[in-house]
């Protein structure tokens, strides 16, 4: 692959490879965080919530230290072309990953609040499980696309974000009917609205990461250009 070409300095290759694996390490941590947050929310597991909130600190630490690595690489190696795009994209990707971690922590805090009330008046939680499953799968796919530098998979993920947005609107309508039927459900339903909003935001961050993957491989900035053109860029042959 052109992007993994040998540099004169072997050490530079090792640094870039190390950067990628640290991003993956952070990605893995964030993946676990969301998985735990959703599981804990569905089962009312308060220890799980605490764990998710505690993990957030490690995610923050990784963000800062990966950013630092990027600055060092730019200063010392003055990367060009594909390498420069990789470093720039990593800076943006870790920001999105950190935000996803924040959303997971937010879900955990909401969960704590809901379960302290000790009574779930809104029973339709499996809708949320479906939304959570989609968010978790999208995050996993986008990290895989980053490892494999696969713009086609990245384009597919960008399109999938639309489904997440639709699901969120559908779930919101459902929760509104509950609130109208029985005002006692309002406070819990509102918390659940926030949780599903967090899941929807995770979808948006995943989309940003996917756009960055396309940028690394194709060298084209595909933000704000519409889905159809983005897909054309991702599938185009020229690198």
């Amino acid at each position, binding site marked *: 692959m052109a992007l993994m070409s040998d540099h004169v300095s072997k050490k530079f290759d090792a640094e870039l*490879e190390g950067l*990628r*694996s640290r991003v*993956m*390490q952070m*990605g*893995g*941590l964030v*993946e*676990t965080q969301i*998985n735990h947050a959703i*599981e804990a929310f569905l089962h009312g597991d308060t220890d799980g919530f605490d764990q998710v909130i505690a993990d957030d600190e490690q995610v923050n630490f990784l963000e800062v230290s990966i950013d630092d690595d990027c600055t060092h690489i730019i200063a010392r190696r003055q990367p060009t072309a594909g390498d420069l795009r990789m470093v720039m994209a990593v800076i943006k990707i870790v920001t999105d990953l950190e935000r996803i971690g924040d959303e997971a922590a937010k879900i955990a805090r909401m969960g704590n609040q809901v379960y302290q009330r000790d009574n779930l008046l809104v029973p339709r939680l499996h809708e949320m499980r479906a939304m*959570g*499953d989609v968010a*978790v*799968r999208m995050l*996993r796919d986008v*990290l*895989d696309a980053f*490892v*494999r530098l*696969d713009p086609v998979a990245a384009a597919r993920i960008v399109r999938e974000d639309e489904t997440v947005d639709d699901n969120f609107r559908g779930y919101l309508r459902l929760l509104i009917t509950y609130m109208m039927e029985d005002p006692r459900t309002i406070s819990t339903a509102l918390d659940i609205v926030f949780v599903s909003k967090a899941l929807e935001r995770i979808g948006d961050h995943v989309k940003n990461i996917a756009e960055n993957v396309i940028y690394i491989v194709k060298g084209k900035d595909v933000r704000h250009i519409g889905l159809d053109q983005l897909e054309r860029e991702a599938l185009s042959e020229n690198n």
Partner: protein
Amino acid sequence: MNLWMSLALRLSLGAVPCLVVAAFFGAVAGLALATLLLLLAVISHWRMLNQLRKWLQSPTTETIPDAAGALGQVFADLYRAQRDQERSRARLAASLERFREAAGALPDGVVMLDPENRIDWFNPAAQGQFGLDPERDSGTLVTNLLRQPDFTAYIQQGDFSEPLLMRGAAADSRVFSIVVIPFAVSNRLLLSRDVSQIERVETMRRDFVANVSHELRTPLTVIMGFLEHLVDDPAMEQQTRMHFLKLLHDQAQRMNRLVDDLLTLSKLENRQQPMHEEIVDIPSLLSILVADGKSLSAGKHAFKVDFAAGNLLGSASELRSAFGNLVSNAVRYTPDGGTISLRWIVEAGVPVFSVADNGLGIAPEHLPRLTERFYRVDKGRSAQTGGTGLGLAIVKHALLNHQARLEIDSTLGAGSTFKAIFPSTRMVAVEPTTTVSALVKT
């Protein structure tokens, strides 16, 4: 043949015509012929050497040049060497292919890692378990694709004496047991096994033990409390004392019921001998059940009995405990003044025992889990009605032993119908003379 001998023979073969020519036409003509023959020999050898050089660029057994003379011998030797090599290479390729096929057919995931933990090769099971891509993923760091922090820590710390239990990344919450085996200096073999089923059984077992302890502890706490009270206060009024003793008795009975149910359940599950089968007189069983139900209900419910089917082949004691549980459930979960109807009829050609009530009913989301041990629709209520939480589990197992199935039909607020549907082969036509004494004993 000796090489020198062959050379001498050839030289003399060439020399004979030259000598003949020299004898007839003079020495000059003889020398000219000798020169010509030598030149021809040199050209032919040069051509063959050229062929050999060409052949050596891509040696195969099919294209080896054919020649006579000393080089012919060389070609023959090369041909043999080449043939042996091709054979052994084919054998090696076949055995490697067999090994890969065997590793591919393994139900467990196998991933080969190089010394830097890059993926070398993996089998289809690993591909399915971890979502790996055979086209793209060889040469990728394994920790970039299996990103679980537990796994990264496990592979980096380098102590693989204990397997790692790891959740899959997918939302289907599969659990894998991962073992890393070092091989060939510093390569590693990563084996993964899907242990979700074992984990689930383990969780159920843990839950069961926790539930049993909890169920036994509740009455025990009450008993201990009252006993302490009785010990501390010897001068208690006779009436209060009697009241306490009655409460103690109730709790002891509750514990006894629970232990009985546990024993019944364990007997139903771990049957060593085949079931003792006899012809069970259902009508008289029904009358016993109604009598039991009436005494439990203490006149608060109306009973209706309707039987139109014959007798049944099976175990009298198991059927009695299964049907008895259905009846006592109906009594417990039907408010005073309700009606409980027992029916033993033939429906669509098979015998069906059903207990219908017009009581509380069960919400549909509880129905699939109702036969789980200690599953409670309403945690507060069943304890006060005196259930053990094992009744329907007993019913399910007893019916399973009779190849029968339990169908539950319920509407919240309108009542429930529990149906035990038996296979038609167990039905025995009624013969008015048969009465089964076994029933009376149980």
